[in-house]
């Protein structure tokens, strides 16, 4: 759907907003370019093909990439990155493979060194070759996706219908996901187990024990993608798979997603900071790497602005959503993501008891649509004001769906009338899809006729939110984004830059820092 502007937004204000977002993010990007993290370094090893867990330490939950990165860190530090010491050792120590090296690290027989001079150049070249191979695997998966879409086809309608499965058990998730696809889902998201965000390692293998979600592991990714490939052929449209690149292992999970041809990833710039208390600097460093991988893999990211409205008021704080979208966009562009890859988030979370709540929702949704005309936008259903009154909830979801189609949203996360009660039942999903289908069928073309009155309630509200967003961006540019986050600007949650989880995993890069994956991705990004 092409988006014809209807709100009469002032082009100068829009450009100013983008300029300010650029300026607000620049210092944070600089921070990301001068630091690395344990997870970024582990992602480099994963990209180069290191897999598996240490069988002797723990009970299968310590991946080799963790062992190797921790060992390098203990012995020589991470200031130069993991690649130089690892590939220097690999080249000179007589190992048969990267996995062989990992095993020797496990037995404690490896002494790493940061190579210099010619040795450094050779190690860097070897590391680049390994990373290039890894990236070519990601490229291959991307081409494979393109081919499948060409052959099987895309969904016929926009918005794409996005459904969640969350049993905790990958073998339960698979039939549920296939059932969801048969019932009309264009995108299936497997939500993660609570607690995974705070694990500083990626679990391994097929898992059956999650809480309120299923662990993100490479094997679970592979199993689910294969199952959806099967069902895609059956239903005649390519069904996309979504997971979460968030938490302490964001860069590694992004890499695994690229390698296993996931199609969308939740990847918000601030979600982990605000809602998991992960250190802000850790998050921004990890995020830049993960977004570069997503850019390369042709993955559509989903951002998480909807979540702010669960802790902050959706009317009073509407402009913080706009600000965050602009920041997410600026970060994403810098990392090489194209507009079609930006599933910027926003949500139908206004208290339904306030007068004209629907018109306010419409104004906010149109504002997002017109500010980001080339981004798919992810439209999120009511959650906070859903109650045990499932009948009222069904009506709210209908109104939510109506805005979804009226304003040309790209991705519509299907709302469940039982949101406040349970993780969705089979029948909840079926009823919810009927709701979506009815609305798309009954009003799918309404956007052609609908135009808010000039200077009327909707246009004025959109303008007001944009103005407030520009004012806030102005203040953020002055104070610094990290300070703004510390002060509780987003989601009224205060997160100082020197606190939160995972800070100990952040390392300032030294002058000779080398990261083969970043180097290759930055080269193609420019």
């Amino acid at each position, binding site marked *: 759907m092409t988006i014809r502007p209807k709100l009469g937004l002032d082009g100068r204000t829009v450009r100013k907003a983008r300029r300010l977002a650029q300026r607000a993010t620049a210092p944070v990007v600089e921070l990301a370019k001068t630091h690395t993290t344990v997870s970024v370094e582990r992602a480099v090893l994963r990209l180069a093909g290191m897999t598996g867990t240490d069988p002797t330490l723990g009970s299968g939950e310590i991946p080799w990439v963790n062992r190797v990165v921790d060992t390098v860190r203990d012995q020589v530090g991470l200031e130069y990155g993991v690649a130089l010491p690892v590939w220097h050792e690999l080249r000179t120590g007589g190992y048969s493979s990267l996995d062989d090296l990992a095993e020797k690290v496990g037995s404690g027989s490896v002494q790493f060194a940061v190579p210099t001079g010619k040795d450094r150049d050779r190690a860097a070249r070897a590391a680049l070759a390994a990373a290039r191979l890894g990236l070519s695997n990601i490229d291959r998966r991307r081409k494979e996706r393109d081919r499948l879409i060409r052959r099987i086809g895309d969904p016929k309608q926009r918005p794409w219908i996005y459904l969640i499965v969350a049993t905790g058990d990958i073998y339960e998730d698979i039939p549920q996901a296939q059932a969801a696809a048969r019932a009309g889902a264009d995108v299936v998201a497997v939500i993660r187990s*609570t607690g995974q965000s705070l694990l500083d390692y990626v679990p391994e293998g097929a898992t059956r024990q999650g*809480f309120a979600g299923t662990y993100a592991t490479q094997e679970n990714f592979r199993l689910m993608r294969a199952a959806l490939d099967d069902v895609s052929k059956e239903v005649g449209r390519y069904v996309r798979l979504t997971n979460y690149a968030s938490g302490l292992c964001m860069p590694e999970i992004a890499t695994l997603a690229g390698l296993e041809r996931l199609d969308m990833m939740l990847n918000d710039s601030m979600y982990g900071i605000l809602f998991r*208390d992960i250190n802000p600097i850790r998050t921004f460093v990890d995020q830049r790497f993960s977004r570069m991988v997503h850019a390369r893999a042709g993955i559509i990211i989903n951002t998480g602005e909807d979540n702010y409205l669960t802790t902050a008021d959706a009317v009073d704080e509407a402009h913080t959503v706009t600000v965050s979208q602009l920041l997410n966009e600026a970060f994403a562009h810098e990392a090489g993501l194209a507009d079609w890859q930006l599933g910027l988030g926003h949500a139908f979370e206004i208290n339904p008891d306030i007068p004209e709540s629907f018109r306010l929702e419409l104004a906010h949704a149109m504002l997002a649509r017109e500010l980001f005309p080339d981004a798919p936008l992810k439209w999120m259903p009511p959650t906070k004001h859903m109650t045990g009154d499932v009948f009222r909830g069904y009506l709210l979801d209908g109104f939510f769906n109506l805005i979804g189609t009226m304003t040309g949203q790209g991705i519509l996360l299907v709302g469940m009338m039982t949101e406040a009660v349970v993780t969705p039942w089979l*029948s909840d999903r079926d*009823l919810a899809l009927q709701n979506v289908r009815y609305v798309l069928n009954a009003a799918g073309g309404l956007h052609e006729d609908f135009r808010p009155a000039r200077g009327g309630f909707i246009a004025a509200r959109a303008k007001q939110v944009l103005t407030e967003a520009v004012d806030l961006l102005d203040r953020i540019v002055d104070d610094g984004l990290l300070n703004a986050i510390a002060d509780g600007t987003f989601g009224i949650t205060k997160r100082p830059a020197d606190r939160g989880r995972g800070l100990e995993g952040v390392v300032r890069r030294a002058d000779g820092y080398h990261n083969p994956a970043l180097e290759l991705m930055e080269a193609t990004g420019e």
Partner: protein
Amino acid sequence: MNEPAGLAATGGIVRPYGDTTGDGMVQLSFTLPIPHDARAEGAALQLAGKMGMAPAMVVHAKAMSEGFTFFVVYGSVTHLVDVSKVEVIEREYPLLPAKDVNAQIKRTLRRKLVVLGACIGTDAHTVGIDAILNVKGFAGEKGLEYYREMRVLNLGAQVSVPELVHRARAERCDAVLVSQVVTQRDAHLRNTRELSAAFREAMGTRRPLLVVGGPRFDPAMTDELGVDRIFGRGTTPGEVASYLVHAMGQHRGGAR
């Protein structure tokens, strides 16, 4: 409790009300894991019958996914409800305005009441505990931070039990308030048991008051879970404040 007009007439015995007194009408929806056909509708009626609905009518049946059918059933239930035999947990304490709560703390403790709040385990839902603790409060009532005679420490989410015990000791707190929202696989019950066991082990009978809350708790489970009080859906800060002064006065007058 105010008795609705209809009650007195039937002596506390009621039946569900559809559109006339005593018609017993209810609606019910459920899914059976069988494909939709005449037999499936019969199976739905059989279930309704066993649930006490007679006569019952399948007013909607729809095949879902592969091998499932969704039903909506209407019918009259044969059961009678005896309102006089209903057991509820009555609020065991009077609801006090903030100034009375403050005055009572001052009188009985002669110092501030120290309250520690957190979400334990991997639960990251803080809106509930914040509603109880933050000045902003909930449902028009100010949160505990607003109470002059309380010192409130909100540790936020994802706090481990050992960490909580440690802080409770260090702050010499009187009451620990814990929120649990995620209930899949009974995570809330498990975490609460871990909480009470840890406090018992670390502090014995000198442990602070343990209060848990969340939308899916059964307030009758206090003994089973080893805590002093459980608050459910829609709790307001005023209720919690009133309970705290009541409990402090009753049982311990401060755990220091």
